[in-house]
């Protein structure tokens, strides 16, 4: 996270937005992360599998790789990104434990 981001969060902390704003920010984050969740698994691994299989990827066909390896790595990353961003959001809105 850049210094600029930290600064703007600091400002928010002073303002302490309402719980409704916190919830909306949470939903926006969820929407983004779940879109990625959907694209790597149902998109790349299933619906576009055949198309992506034309692309070689480190000895794999790309669609097959997403279905049996890649999507899992992305899932792990998504949860940690979520945990980190939510912790920042909790602080910004002053609702941390």
């Amino acid at each position, binding site marked *: 996270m850049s210094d600029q981001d930290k600064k703007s969060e600091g400002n928010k902390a002073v303002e302490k937005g309402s719980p409704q704003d916190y919830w909306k920010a949470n939903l926006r984050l969820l929407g983004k992360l779940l879109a990625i969740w959907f694209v790597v698994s149902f998109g790349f691994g299933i619906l576009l599998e055949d198309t992506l299989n034309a692309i070689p990827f480190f000895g794999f066909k790309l669609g097959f790789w997403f279905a049996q390896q890649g999507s899992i790595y992305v899932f792990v990353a998504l949860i940690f990104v979520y*945990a980190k961003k939510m912790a920042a959001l909790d602080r910004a809105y002053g609702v941390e434990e």
Partner: protein
Amino acid sequence: MELQTLTYLFVGLSFALYIGIAIKSRASTTKEFYIAGGGVHPVVNGMATAADWMSAASFISMAGIIAFSGYDASVYLMGWTGGYVLLALLLAPYLRKFGKFTVPDFIGDRYYSDAARIVAAICLIFISFTYVAGQMRGVGIVFSRFLDVDINTGVFSGMAIVFMYAVLGGMKGITYTQVAQYCVLIFAYTVPAVFISLLITGNPVPQFGLGSELADGSGISVLEKLDSTLVELGFNAYTEGSKSTIDIFAITFALMVGTAGLPHVIVRFFTVPKVADARKSAGWALVFIALLYTVAPAVGAFARINFINEVNETKYTETPDWFKNWEGLGLIGWQDKNGDGKIQYRAGAAFAGKPVFDDDKKGASGERIVTNTSTDSANEVYVDRDIMVLANPEIAGLPDWVIALVAAGGLAAALSTAAGLLLVISTAVSHDLLKKKFMPHISDKQELMYARIAAAAAVGVAGYAGINPPGFVAAVVAFAFGLAAASLFPAILMGIFYKKMNKEGAISGMLTGLIFTIGYIGYFKIISPGDNVAANWLFGISPEGIGSIGMLINFAVAFAVQRVTAPTPQHVQDLVDHIRVPSGAGSASTH
């Protein structure tokens, strides 16, 4: 040392470890029994969750399914991991903030209704029992193959161990044994995978080995080799699969949502100290799960290559020992259709159904005679997919200690999951049904006693199911996920994200979702299995994937009913506001 002595040693040592932990961490209050006191570190909880989640199905069966169905098996890989994203983002932190002991607790309070609580408790008990029967069976198989005792003795030993730490230690005992079991199972899974990856590709990391060239100098990669060999033998290409796209989509979705709705997994997130810990802990759980799940596709692919190399066009008299060992257990069967004394492995079933043997009578090459009616297929060999992980080290010719380790790992996987399931069953009985409904005046001590009695009874029932597996055990695993997807997941999700959802909506949604899903799976899996073909399925969706539709029906009915019934009371709307922010969580409590 003999293989059997080594196996006894490894299994014995691991069991001693589990019992030691059980004795050290006895639970003395319901809070310790239900949620380990609520002070479990998120990484520790992540590891325990991984062991809790990865069952005999993940450890023993999954790589075998991948080996024999290639791309189609991606539904399990994505479905059983992607569910954690839903769990972490949509459920776990809020349920932790809610701060009670069980899933029916949340549903009962959020929908201000004992009827909702009881429906949820019954779903939970049903889901968990279907699941646990399979675990005990897994224990029995490992015992009978590697320790040369009969399946019943194996199941009894497993029951005794689980009894020790689940009944005495409750969640506290289970948490720390699960951590130990995770270490045993991941080591046991990875070591043979690394060996085999080295043998086949020269790359020690199985995840990369799967994408590497074969070490035989042919310049062909593992997956190319599999694709071309399988097509030659009449199968579909390994990387393409045969299920329809809509079915793959529906099954993956049902497994993801079902995973997120499985009560024994959800309840693990009640044990961490804070909301932020619940989020992180889900991430750690998935890291530990991914260590096995990204290795499994490699194990599956290597196993298929090895199997074809060792078996196809080999004379029966020259087959390796493992082939005859598993044939002896009835999990491999061979009919020499063309009378050449060699095993032909081709696409299609060799004969109708599972092999039935003519006692110990031997055929012309010395094989056990299979009495089933032959099919027209050129294929001559039946192989049970569940043996692949257990047989893999033998097939690859690995040292005996690796084989012994795999046996201990399989037991760790089955026992850790069984214990987690038994715990939520006993909690649902003692807490959700007795304390919250039928015997509200019992003290904490009495409730703890009932929890132990319920756990002991559940161990007994699970053991019975392991010894006398109902014929449909394998078939009803689809039930566990389908029902979790169609009943619990939508009710919890709407409880958190849609403040206006009222009790009438939630209950009617759960019931219609349940009835539809039970009806569909029951019809195709139990009542009329002959009709279970794609042409008869709704939208071409198999019973394994129907939970997705059940979930949509649940949502649709819930929203429709909610519109025409009394609104959610203010104090419940306030409760929802309260669980949406992390501050003021405190530790989980009964009141």
